[in-house]
């Protein structure tokens, strides 16, 4: 219907979902990580950075609720050089900044590509939010929803947009399951029922495999993006 509306695309930064940068090069793949407070989003981002930083050029955008703690954790852990980590302030509403009004996040990802690019991958982490918080398709190309066994093993059964629609569901901290009385098999079955063919990873970052499965999923996404 609007085949002639490419004129909105020739200036810099006009449309966030464009797959190409103003100079015509392909922009970085953007993957969002959301989920409830304390489920291990930042720890997963840190582990992904360690797993992928030697093979990919990557950067991280954090969306904290009222501090810069997530960004500072990543800086302290030195998972990436500081110029590759940007904190977006969300006015107490991370879900607004990742879904309803994505302008500050788009600016952050574009500035990262301008200043430290070329980049292969940008991880956009949401501040801990509720089960309905999902990323706009104008901001990310795929999203990971991170929940944990200690947050209640009924979370997959309850569903919600994050659990049911995220491109990857991660059930984190499986090592804690025996201590908090969570039934991993039930969580996996409920997640499967909610998500049909969409993948689920059960992970313990303290275990031997760590973030391997999620890193593998990210590599597949990247291969599809650059194909």
């Amino acid at each position, binding site marked *: 219907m609007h085949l002639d*509306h490419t*004129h*909105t695309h*020739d*200036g*810099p*930064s*006009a*449309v*966030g979902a464009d797959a190409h940068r103003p100079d015509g090069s392909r922009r970085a793949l953007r993957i969002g990580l959301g989920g409830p407070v304390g489920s291990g989003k930042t720890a997963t981002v840190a582990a992904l950075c360690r797993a992928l930083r030697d093979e990919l050029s990557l950067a991280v955008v954090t969306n904290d*609720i*009222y*501090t*810069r703690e997530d960004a500072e954790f990543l800086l302290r852990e030195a998972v990436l050089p500081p110029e590759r980590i940007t904190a977006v*302030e*969300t*006015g*107490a*509403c991370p879900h*607004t*900044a990742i879904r*309803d*009004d*994505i*302008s*500050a996040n*788009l*600016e952050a990802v574009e500035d990262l590509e301008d200043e430290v690019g070329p980049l292969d991958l940008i991880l956009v982490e949401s501040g801990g939010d509720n089960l309905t918080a999902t990323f706009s398709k104008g901001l990310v190309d795929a999203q990971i929803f991170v929940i944990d066994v200690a947050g209640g093993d009924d979370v997959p059964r309850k569903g919600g947009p994050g659990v049911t629609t995220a491109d990857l569901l991660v059930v984190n901290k499986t090592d804690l399951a025996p201590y908090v009385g969570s039934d991993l098999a039930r969580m996996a079955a409920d997640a499967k029922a909610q998500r049909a063919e969409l993948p689920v990873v059960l992970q313990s970052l303290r275990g031997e495999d760590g973030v391997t499965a999620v890193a593998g999923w990210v590599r597949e996404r990247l291969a599809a993006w650059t194909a």
Partner: protein
Amino acid sequence: MPTPTPSTTRAALLVLADGRFPAGGHAHSGGAEAAVRAGRITGAAELEEFCRGRLHTAGLVAASLAAAAALGVGPAPLDAAADARTPSPALRRVARRLGRQLMRAARATWPSAELDALADRFPKGAHQPVVLGLTARAAGLGAEDAAYCSVYESVGGPASATVRLLSLDPFDATGVLARLAPEMDLVVGRAVEAAWRAVDEGVDVLPAVSAPLLEIGAEAHGGWAVRLFAS
């Protein structure tokens, strides 16, 4: 027989004035967070005084800049005029950041050659009221519409932020805005009058009133490690 007033742009005005218009405003308190921390806003009565002060100072200046941009006064001189009227470096940065965010939303919403030219000239953002005025032009709106958006933002932002900061009753916060409406009308009138003068006489005739506590508060707020809002 009188012809009916064309109202073809009224809906566009609502789109632009809507607080949900995705241009980044939700992360900013318009100085309310600093005022709450300093104990100057503790309830609806103080919020009203804060908003009244902002409306007649920063609100008037912003509205006149927006109206002048909507009338076609050049964005570069207007941006310089905005700088000159914004002593706090923190507030200048915020104004440009919000201008950049609005520029993105406006170009996606109402594509126009003027907005493209603005983005080329100010890739990291011009002052938000200047972008707002050009956005109004792109949307087919006039100077008065741009001024209305600007004055409403100048009080609407702090009011909704205070609801979050103090858990203020949202009906009380909205009541504050309703009570300020007649004053908003007056400020829009002054802003548009000044903007028309600027068309002939240059940007120096635009209002240059300031609110020192807003400027000082913004500088302090910019240094906080823990805050809910970006400004």
